[in-house]
């Protein structure tokens, strides 16, 4: 989900990174290459194997609706576990400490539980094939078409950006050619999703989930051993913070909520209200409950109980993810070293760009570099070392914290496993994008607006072809981004622009019988326009951030969360006002769509330890305990 990638990665710095890195971070051995090749062979084998089980539209687009709760749950959480996320949030943890954990806990867990217990019955009972499909049933074709077209566009462009970002990371980490990475990954994705449809995408996401944990878990384990455990890590971070300039107070690295009372008291420049309302409610609920990319995975569950249980199972793993993302970032802060044994200090992409080296290993533009370093947290010694050139002079960015930690600890074979985990993360993200695009294109655009009378096999063929076309357009988008870097910012903003009004439309549609068709359509459309206008306002006039986030001390991270909140409020007000001015649908028409107008099917009783409510309570208690422990 690029929309939740930290701003350092989302700000279009990847192309700059590409131009600068002369020497790759890692060199793979034969064993590492073998590990990567085996992964590619496996995903293509799965695609060919599943081809025979993807003949009808229900099988191809909905995986036959026969996934168990565990498979749907792991696929659900895995669709979000992309490599840009892993690297970006590890870098954010290096920079901001455990504040970054908010995007894994309050930014996910409440929404997942809500989806499982409250929303899933409506998605499942209505037998919709997509989120735009639900909007069609609830608000009619106009609202559904707006959602479908915006979602399909977003998916395909995101896939291109994802593809390009992966190629850049492979170039920086391994020195691989950009076109090689783009072509190999896109051919593999087109093959296995085109052959096996959603079932193949889901299988590979579960495989990727296992790979990511298998490849990344070793880094924090070895890091903690070397740092002397959690106490040793804390002690060394506090010590390092005293020697850095412009850094944050050391103990701020270990508090989730304590310093969120004002924008200026924490390094992210956010306020608790933005974290709770913008991130915890709008962005999180918008993504986890209305973004079809993830909801599609749960819709593939074999019965309602499995569909409700899947997000709850996923929430346990989401809660544990900071162990392989946030912890390596914190460990990097104290363990990364230069060749001479001195501490390696990572910086922002802007400083890396400003201090680019020439072919002679010297800083190309000394005055620009000095100015950039003066604003960074680099120690005077480290700044001198950069200006002097030579070994260890090249700067690395926060986003390289995770790959640098992998290179530090993982020898032959294990490094290949770690790199495979990153590749798998990228590929499953791409596969998620194209499989969701294919479903929405076929059902909500082609079937709804172009050809309503096709046979089942015709729609499967359209779905397969749309995957090929989608991958081809994604490749085009990847090369477009490569040659026009500024586009990346706009593509990555699409998610945050669409998601808030969509959440308002779905929540009012699902929980308020009075919400009318016209209100849903107008609320969604004007909400998107309002959200896009706020984005462009801040883009063109950066000072507007202080207005959007209600504080002159707000930083870019705050903009996303407050823009989401205002866009939701705007869309909600429009929906309420227009609904009150227009005629509601008869309640009888809302059966299966709206809370209070729907008879939910009775589920077979199960022992308490198999009940979704029991596990939801455990999740909520754990979530609360973690937030209190790291307060």
């Amino acid at each position, binding site marked *: 989900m690029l929309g939740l990638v930290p701003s350092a990665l989302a700000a279009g710095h990847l192309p700059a990174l590409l131009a600068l890195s002369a020497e790759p971070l890692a060199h793979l051995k034969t064993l590492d290459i073998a*590990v990567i090749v085996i992964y590619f062979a*496996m995903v293509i084998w799965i695609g060919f194997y599943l081809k025979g089980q993807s003949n009808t539209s229900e099988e191809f687009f909905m995986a036959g609706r026969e996934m*168990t709760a565990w498979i749907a749950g792991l696929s659900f959480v895995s669709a979000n576990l992309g490599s840009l996320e892993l690297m970006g949030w590890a870098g954010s943890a290096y920079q901001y400490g455990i504040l970054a954990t908010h995007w894994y806990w309050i930014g996910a867990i409440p929404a997942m539980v809500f989806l499982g217990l409250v929303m899933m019955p409506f998605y499942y009972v209505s037998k919709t094939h997509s989120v735009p499909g639900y909007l069609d049933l609830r608000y009619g074709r106009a609202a559904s078409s707006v959602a479908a077209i915006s979602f399909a566009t977003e998916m395909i462009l995101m896939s291109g950006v994802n593809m390009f970002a992966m190629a850049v990371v492979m170039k920086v980490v391994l020195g691989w050619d950009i076109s090689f990475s783009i072509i190999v990954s896109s051919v593999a994705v087109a093959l296995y999703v085109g052959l096996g449809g959603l079932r193949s995408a889901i299988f590979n996401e579960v495989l990727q989930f*296992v790979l990511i944990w298998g490849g990344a878990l070793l880094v924090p384990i070895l890091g903690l051993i*070397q740092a002397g455990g959690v106490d040793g890590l804390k002690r060394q971070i506090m010590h390092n913070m005293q020697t850095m300039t412009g850094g944050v107070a050391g103990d701020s690295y270990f508090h989730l909520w304590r310093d969120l009372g004002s924008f200026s008291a924490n390094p992210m420049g956010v306020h608790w209200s933005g974290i709770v309302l913008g991130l915890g409610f709008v962005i999180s609920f918008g993504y986890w409950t209305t973004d079809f990319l993830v909801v599609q995975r749960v819709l593939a569950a074999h019965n309602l109980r499995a569909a409700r249980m899947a997000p709850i199972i996923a929430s346990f793993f989401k809660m544990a993810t900071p162990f392989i993302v946030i912890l390596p970032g914190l460990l990097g802060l104290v363990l990364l070293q230069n060749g001479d044994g001195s501490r390696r200090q990572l910086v922002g992409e802007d400083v890396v760009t400003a201090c680019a080296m020439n072919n002679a290993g010297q800083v190309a533009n000394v005055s620009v570099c000095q100015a950039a370093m003066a604003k960074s947290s680099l120690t005077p010694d480290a700044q001198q070392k950069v200006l002097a050139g030579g070994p260890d002079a090249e700067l690395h960015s926060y986003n390289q914290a995770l790959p640098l930690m992998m290179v530090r*600890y*993982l020898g*032959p*074979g*294990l490094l290949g496993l770690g790199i495979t985990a990153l590749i798998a993360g990228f590929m499953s993200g791409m596969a998620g994008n194209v499989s969701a695009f294919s479903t929405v294109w076929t059902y909500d655009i082609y079937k709804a607006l172009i050809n309503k009378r096709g046979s089942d096999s015709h729609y499967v063929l359209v779905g397969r072809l749309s995957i090929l076309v989608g991958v081809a357009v994604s490749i085009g988008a990847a090369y477009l981004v490569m040659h026009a870097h500024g586009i990346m910012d706009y593509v990555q903003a699409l998610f945050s622009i669409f998601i808030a009004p969509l959440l308002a439309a779905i929540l009012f549609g699902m929980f308020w019988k009075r919400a009318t068709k016209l209100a849903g359509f107008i609320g969604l459309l004007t909400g998107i326009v309002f959200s896009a206008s706020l984005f462009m306002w801040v883009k063109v006039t950066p000072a507007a951030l202080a207005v959007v986030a209600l504080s002159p001390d707000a930083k870019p991270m705050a903009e996303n969360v407050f823009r989401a909140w205002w866009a939701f409020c705007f869309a909600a007000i429009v929906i309420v006002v227009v609904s009150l001015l227009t005629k509601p649908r008869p309640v009888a028409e809302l059966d299966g769509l709206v809370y209070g107008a729907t008879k939910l099917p009775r589920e077979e009783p199960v022992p308490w330890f198999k009940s979704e409510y029991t596990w939801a309570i455990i999740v909520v208690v754990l979530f609360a305990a973690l937030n209190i422990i790291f307060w």
Partner: protein
Amino acid sequence: MHGSKISIWFFIGVLLTAYGVLIAGNGVIDLVMGKLAPVQLAELHAPVWWGGTLLALGLFYLIKFRPGKA
């Protein structure tokens, strides 16, 4: 996802077993030959125990979810 169809867990078993054999095998050879990889904490021989863990997990899934098992 059971019965005549191959379970996803079987595929995972195949992959983990292959990785376990390669990584643990290489780690054991290095251990026997007294070779240390040029990484931090190489003396802990992570490939041996981590590769061994992957192998054990892989074999578990491979056997438990093998095709044709009722």
